[in-house]
């Protein structure tokens, strides 16, 4: 009984925290952060407890909707699916979240809207945990939308800044486009399988496939659209770089480590069904490959420290999506999800540390030589950089190469996208690292930068240890046991290391000496292939025009008919008024004419 309550405490404690902060948080900063950290800590303890305890926990579910008619039950429950996938995910999410909560105390110390920020973070943690434990599609969708709104609140934290306000709106709207597909997919799968429980999905998916394979494929591709939105895959990736308008800890927790990975997590959840549909897997694979490659290209030419990391996140999410589509088990992608959560979170927290040190300057071409001013940040950023680039023995090496090995085994051309992206990844991350920490200081802020307070450095330290070690087999397998392919040719490893070396070398040659401005300029990459401009045009010219036409038609055509109708009535009344001449002879004439008319009508029958 006691144990059954623990998952509920895990899920609800951040929600309670959010409500408490909403009502009492305005009183003091200490109270806001105290409640937030306490609730996140409680969830953390529950998650570690459940995971270390292992085994099955029977948790009573809550009937959100439960109705039986004609013997058919329709039940949407809020319940828990605690298994080998969700338990380690819970641990990762709560750990990263807890560290970011602590880091935020330092980062947000001088900012306004402190309580609003912590309430938003608590709401986010609640919704994210809901996605992780969700036992059915509808519950996942419900929390899926909720992470969307917490993301909206947090991106729009500096809501008086136009760019932040627009970014928040864009993030929510683009996600809604993805959710449109997600919901339709859920409806389709529900209608033809009669279930949306993840446990029943595999068996029922088999039934649909046997009946009509394209039906399952359609459903899955629609559901995948949800991932495309949430995990910022091409072509719905545009919101993620703009979401960097939020405070840096938010970018680190939501838009790097956990929330955006929810899309991949969902694919892992439905993997048993997904693996039944080769066409859906092919779609997933290509979307992942294109995203991973394009985002890396865009990342090579960005100048904002957070935006570079944002494109890197998109690209890494692309790897995970490829991982889902090529491996025989979802654990491969989830392994990369875990390692990425740690090292990308670390990178963002380091970037935050740099930004605070630089008095909120984010342009890397105003930085430089920070390795002397911020030595601890320098070392930890280095660890993050190596992990992202996939230098052995850092964690990224193990998980990313595993995905590419599987892609090679499967023999898909997407492998080459992934492999070339290794070179690009190494290039852009070392570019950032060299420009920020080496070379001459490029501005006054860089000359007077200071190391961040301990409350920020401590979470970074823990994350650097994790980023270094979590890939090692005997530690990583503690979290998850990814399936390794058999017979990986040795030269494949050399190819991958080769790509890495090329990227690093080029970055070293170009940036290590400390150029004052970027020696290479590629407008297409810098302008993100003009995809954002295309969307702006689409929204403004096409959607805006269409809306305008609808409003016009409504005002002048639909309502015009009403006006014409009322005009006819008025005209009729006007004619009748003309007849009322107030003259007795005229009325006698009408009377007589009327009688004649009636007689005529009666007799003519």
């Amino acid at each position, binding site marked *: 009984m006691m144990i059954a309550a623990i998952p509920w405490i895990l899920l609800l404690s951040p929600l309670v925290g959010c409500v408490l902060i909403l009502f009492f948080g305005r009183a003091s900063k200490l109270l806001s952060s105290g409640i937030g950290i306490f609730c996140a800590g409680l969830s953390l303890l529950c998650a570690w407890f459940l995971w270390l305890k292992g085994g099955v926990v029977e948790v009573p579910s809550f009937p959100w909707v439960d109705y039986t008619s004609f013997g058919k039950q329709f039940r949407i429950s809020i319940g828990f699916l605690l298994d080998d996938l969700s338990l380690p995910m819970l641990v990762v999410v709560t750990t990263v979240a807890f560290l970011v909560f602590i880091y935020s105390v330092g980062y947000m110390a001088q900012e306004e809207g402190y309580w609003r920020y912590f309430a938003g973070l608590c709401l986010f943690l609640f919704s994210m945990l809901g996605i992780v434990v969700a036992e059915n599609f509808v519950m996942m969708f419900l929390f899926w939308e909720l992470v969307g709104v917490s993301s909206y609140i947090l991106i729009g934290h500096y809501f008086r800044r136009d760019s932040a306000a627009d970014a928040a709106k864009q993030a929510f709207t683009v996600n*809604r486009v993805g959710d449109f597909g997600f919901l339709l997919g859920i409806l389709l799968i529900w209608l033809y399988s009669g279930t949306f429980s993840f446990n029943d999905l595999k068996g029922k998916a088999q039934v649909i496939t046997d009946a009509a394979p394209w039906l399952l494929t359609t459903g899955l591709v629609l559901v995948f659209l949800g991932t495309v939105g949430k995990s910022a895959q091409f072509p719905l990736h545009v919101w993620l770089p703009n979401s960097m308008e939020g405070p840096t800890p938010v970018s680190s927790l939501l838009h790097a480590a956990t929330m955006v990975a929810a899309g991949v997590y969902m694919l892992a959840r439905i993997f048993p069904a997904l693996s039944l549909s080769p066409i859906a897997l092919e779609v997933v694979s290509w979307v992942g490959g294109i995203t991973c490659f394009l985002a890396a290209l865009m990342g090579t030419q960005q100048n904002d420290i957070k935006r570079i990391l944002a494109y890197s996140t998109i690209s890494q999410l692309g790897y995970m999506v490829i991982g889902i589509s090529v491996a025989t088990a979802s654990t491969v992608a989830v392994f990369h999800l875990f390692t990425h959560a740690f090292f990308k979170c670390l990178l963002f927290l380091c970037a935050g540390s740099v930004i605070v040190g630089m008095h909120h300057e984010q342009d890397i071409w105003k930085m430089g030589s920070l390795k002397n001013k911020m030595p601890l940040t320098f070392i930890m950023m280095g660890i993050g950089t190596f992990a992202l680039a996939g230098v052995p023995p850092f964690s990224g090496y193990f998980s990313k190469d595993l995905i590419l090995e599987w892609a090679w085994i499967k023999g898909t051309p997407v492998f080459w996208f992934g492999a070339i992206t290794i070179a690009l990844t190494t290039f852009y991350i070392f570019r950032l690292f060299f420009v920020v920490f080496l070379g001459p200081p490029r501005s006054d802020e860089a000359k007077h930068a200071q190391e961040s307070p301990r409350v920020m450095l401590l979470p970074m330290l823990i994350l650097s240890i994790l980023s270094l070690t979590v890939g090692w087999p005997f530690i990583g397998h503690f979290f998850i046991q990814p399936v390794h392919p058999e017979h990986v040719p040795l030269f494949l490893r050399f190819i991958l290391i080769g790509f890495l070396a090329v990227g690093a070398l080029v970055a070293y040659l170009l940036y290590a000496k400390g150029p004052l401005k970027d020696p290479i300029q590629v407008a297409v990459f810098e302008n993100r292939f003009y995809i954002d401009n295309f969307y702006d045009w689409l929204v403004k010219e096409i959607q805006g025009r269409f809306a305008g036409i609808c409003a016009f038609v409504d005002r002048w055509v*639909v309502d015009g008919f009403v006006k014409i109708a009322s005009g006819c009535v008025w005209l009729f009344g006007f004619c009748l008024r003309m007849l009322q001449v107030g003259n007795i002879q005229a009325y006698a004439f009408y009377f007589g004419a009327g009688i004649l008319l009636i007689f005529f009508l009666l007799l003519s029958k």
Partner: protein
Amino acid sequence: MSPLVFLILLLILTSIFCYLSPASARRTAFMGSALQLILFLSLLLIYLFRVEDGAEVFYGWKWELLPELGVVMGLGMDGFSAIMLLLATLVTFAAVWATPAPERSVGFYYGNLFLIAAGVVGAFASTDLLFFYLFHELALIPTFLMIGIWGTGDKHRVAWKVTIYLALASFVLLIGILGLYINLPEISRTFGMRELVDLANSGVLQTPDWVFVMLFLGFGALVSLFPFHTWAPGAYACAPSSVAMLHAGVLKKFGLYGLLRVVLPIFPHEMQEYGHVLLILILGNIFFVGYATMAQRRLDWMLGYSSVMHMGYIFLGIASAMVPFAGGGGSYYLNPLSLGGAGILMFAHGISIAILFALSGQLRRRTATLEFSELGGMGKTMPAFGLLMGMGTFASIGLPGFANFSGELLVFFGAFGSGGAQFLNFYQIATAIAVWGVVVSAIYGLRAYRWTCFGETPERWVGSNELVDLRGREKFAIWILVVFSLLVGFWPQGFLKLLIPALLAQ
């Protein structure tokens, strides 16, 4: 005597007191609106303790007016009417507590407002079609007056337009109701809603098609079914906020209530037969009006249009409520998902639009304009306003946790499944377009929020003392609405237990 009579009398008495003593009218209004809410909430609690499921009619009461003609005034409350009455009393409370006082003729203003409230409560408490209709008319007439007298903008023209439009719709509806009545054999003549349904099911009531058409168009036009919706946006934009809250939030649900209570169970075949036509009209509401909403550049117009658009989801629930049995044979069953979803959406939309109209009224009182281009940054200057506006916006665009989401989700499930197993059938396509409507409403809802509450405050408001935040009582009243929306959002099952049996019982 049923306690529902006391509820209606309380509202009418408050109204009379307000008319008679304008000086204390505002205080009377505060008292009356609080009392009626407390009274109804206690009635609801007793009801919940005493009643097993929502199908049972409680607090029943009959006044045999002309028994030989079957004209009986019947009051009573089952699960469905309980929820509508809850909506009515909540919104009445907020319409008094959360709106600014009128600038002139306070007594007449509140007297009219309570007359609307009495009409609304009376209509939803009626078990009898004729009085259901008459109470609605009682509420409608002060509505016209109030738009004309205390409205803003082009109020006279709009008031006339609404009057003529809705009076015509009511007239059409009345013909339909009389059509039902005269088609009954003389011995069993009645206006009782449940009796009519029973008579129709047993084959005693045989009606020609025109009765259905009249009833459907009458009810439909009152709920702004496309293309009979053009009265709505302007009326809501010009009406004083309390009237917009009561009309868009509650009174408009009259038509939907009638469709669910009367038209659907009496005309299952016709609903099925004209289902496709209805689906196309609904897409007009959701898709066409949805995009027209997006083009609005004023908050009040945008809210007015959005309220027309959201009616489409409820219509979708109604259109998909009659499902032919898979075995064929011309028999139908009621789809509990669509019905429950439609019922919850009626409540949810009422609450969310009332929140938004209350806030837009407060904003207009402070800024004298609702042009988006002249607003901005209110989240900073008026934090409580910004927070509540956010709640209202997210409720109205269907965020999980708010009632609107549960309703929309159930309607989608109900509508998607009601066309049978054939892939890409008409119901599935309509549902898909309706789901796209959720994206559309997110776009305009967040845009409106961004333009009013986010960004920099325009120059003219900087340093001015006009932008004071909401007062305690206004916040309190709006928070009550928010809490009820959250309650339904978090626990729709509790409401479905009342709604679905009541809707299936007929």
